[in-house]
């Protein structure tokens, strides 16, 4: 008999029921909820007279639509529409008795940063949220994925999800990452190779030396963008780093339960003879700092490259590339390092954790934003912000000319007033460069925090390796 993958093991451990046609009912251990994709689900419960099945496993936090400016504890300072959604979440959390971190709580932040920070996310769990970047929690060896609002209502009502099993894909990153090449470059490089639909129908397990060498925060960055590669979820087998990160967190098990949990968690890895439906291998040494040039996360190139010619592509991608270049205002053959930026955004569930802020601050220390460039740093949670302030990182950012904001999703999806103006070009540490994503007509180049910081200083896309070599 062939062995099992980590995904197979977590799946089997959560199977409540299996119908003859293969449709399964999967138990959900943690359900994370935010203000934008939940109001209709709670309303559905109310209309059918249903309760939340497991309020103790349901955690809510407003993040997508909250202002990141001071004074937001007074909802009168929110836009009318934000206020309605935030107040709806307040009311729903109270009425249904679920765990809740309102904007006034220092633990508030982006749901995918709060979950791990508070120890809600643990190895071997199933975690869902009405947000595609739920894949982030896969860094702990948890099966985590985004769901729609109808499924949010289904999980609230039943604590289960109707699922069909995905296929298994292994993405191995061998060897060691070169200096200034980060988790973000790994995850973008993988999408560049496989395409945004390359993972459709699969759950990816990331493995290999370069993944093992990443911190937990780096692993979260990698898994976060599994969805951008089309995969249902991304996973990394838990190890000593995982256990050390989890231990002592407010909702992590303690005492005898910790020991019991740990002994199970240690079994959570793919067997040597497990079957993989698809395998992708990349040498870490071959990964350079990358940026996106177009309007799909698969439009990835090393910073040393040039804007491609649409004729280099095939099929529907030719027209898509032409449309992208037109939207992005770029000409084929242009060096990527000649692309000037107007704005820099550091934050998001991809790169809004303390290590991301430290890495960006190291590049920015004693330097200033290039003339005419605006910068914004949005910590991923109130606790990340407090930690950064304790380390004096806020001073580094402020002295460089950045705005230092309160926690939230902010410009990454531009629901709140943090947006790009039409035609404005941004070096961003977020996850999506779609048309209009950060504001109608706004142009987004995705990259790592160190790359965004280097672009902030020079005013154009910059190879951080050269930047560091030249400025030391």
């Amino acid at each position, binding site marked *: 008999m062939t062995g099992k993958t980590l995904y197979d093991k977590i799946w089997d451990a959560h199977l409540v029921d299996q119908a003859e046609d293969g449709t399964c009912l999967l138990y959900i251990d943690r359900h994370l909820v935010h203000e*934008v994709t939940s109001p209709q689900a709670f309303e559905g419960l109310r209309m059918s007279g249903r309760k939340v099945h497991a309020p103790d496993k349901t955690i809510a936090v407003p993040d997508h639509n909250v202002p990141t400016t001071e004074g937001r504890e007074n909802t009168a300072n929110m836009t009318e529409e934000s206020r309605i959604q935030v107040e709806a979440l307040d009311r729903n959390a109270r009425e249904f008795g679920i765990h809740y971190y309102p904007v006034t709580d220092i633990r508030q932040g982006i749901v995918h940063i709060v979950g791990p920070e508070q120890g809600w996310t643990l190895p071997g769990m199933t975690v869902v949220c009405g947000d595609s970047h739920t894949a982030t929690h896969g860094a702990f060896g948890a099966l985590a*994925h985004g769901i*729609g609002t*109808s499924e949010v209502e289904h999980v609230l*009502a039943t604590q289960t999800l109707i699922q069909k099993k995905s296929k298994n894909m292994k993405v191995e990153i061998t060897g060691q990452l070169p200096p200034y090449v980060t988790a973000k470059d790994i995850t973008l490089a993988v999408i560049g190779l496989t395409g945004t639909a390359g993972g459709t129908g699969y759950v990816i397990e990331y493995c290999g030396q370069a993944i093992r060498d990443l911190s937990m925060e780096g692993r979260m960055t990698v898994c976060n963008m599994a969805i951008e590669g089309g*995969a249902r979820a991304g996973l990394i087998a838990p190890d000593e780093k995982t256990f050390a990160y989890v231990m002592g967190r407010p909702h992590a098990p303690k005492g005898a339960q910790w020991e019991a949990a740990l002994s199970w968690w240690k079994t959570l890895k793919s067997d040597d003879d497990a079957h993989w439906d698809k395998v992708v291998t990349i040498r870490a040494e071959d990964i350079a700092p990358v940026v996106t040039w177009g309007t799909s996360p698969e439009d990835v190139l090393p910073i040393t490259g040039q804007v491609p010619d649409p004729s280099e592509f095939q099929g529907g991608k030719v027209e898509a590339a032409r449309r992208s270049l037109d939207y992005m205002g770029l000409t084929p053959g242009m060096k990527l390092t000649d692309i000037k930026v107007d704005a820099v955004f550091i934050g998001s569930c991809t790169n809004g954790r303390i290590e991301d802020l430290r890495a960006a601050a190291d590049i920015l220390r004693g330097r200033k934003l290039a003339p005419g460039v605006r910068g914004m740093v949005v910590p991923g949670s109130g606790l990340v912000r407090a930690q950064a302030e304790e380390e004096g990182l806020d001073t580094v950012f402020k002295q460089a000319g950045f705005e230092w904001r309160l926690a939230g999703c902010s410009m990454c999806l531009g629901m709140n007033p943090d947006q790009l103006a039409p035609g404005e070009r941004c070096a961003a540490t977020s996850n999506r460069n779609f048309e209009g994503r950060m504001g*109608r007509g706004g142009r987004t180049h995705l990259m790592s925090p160190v790359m965004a910081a280097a672009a902030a200083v020079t005013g154009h896309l910059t190879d951080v390796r050269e930047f560091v070599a030249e400025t030391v």
Partner: protein
Amino acid sequence: MDKFEKLTGIAAPLPLVNVDTDMIIPKQFLKTIKRTGLGVNLFDEMRYDEQGNEIADFVLNQPAYRQAEILIAGENFGCGSSREHAPWAIRDFGIRCIVAPGFADIFFNNCFKNGILPVVLPQEQVDILMKDAEKGANARMIVDLETQTITTSDGVEIGFDVDPFRKHCLLEGLDDIGLTLEKAPAIAGFEARMAQERPWI
């Protein structure tokens, strides 16, 4: 949920790959706490200019396609965010079937929850339907879920696959939650076992 049985309607061609959910319904329309009323903002930034005027050459603004009930699209339709506002907007506009060579996973699931049938076909067959859709309002297609076929205005019949459980739910207009609640004893049994085996959860 509305039943989906057989649909005879106009198909609109949208030959773009990687149509993402930000294109389908931009974030400024996610601020609603309702499921309805989003149709007017479907494909908002492609459909209207910055002053809110219709962009004449966008497919759904053309007289032939204003009543479209079927959408023929390119690879990886619905990629990006999990927002169910995307299928809500599509449904609210009046579209009940989308045909493409591939869909993003979450969007695909969301369609079935809202009485929309997403059909995956090989590129060559999508190309046939795209050509037929380009003929305009006189070219009506027939989508028959029971027989799992799409018939073009020229009478070309193309078969498609659909998951049997999802087909059943669409044909009957069944509510997932109601179905799952029939399995409450199995859920309770699982929870009792987990309280012993993995009490830390």
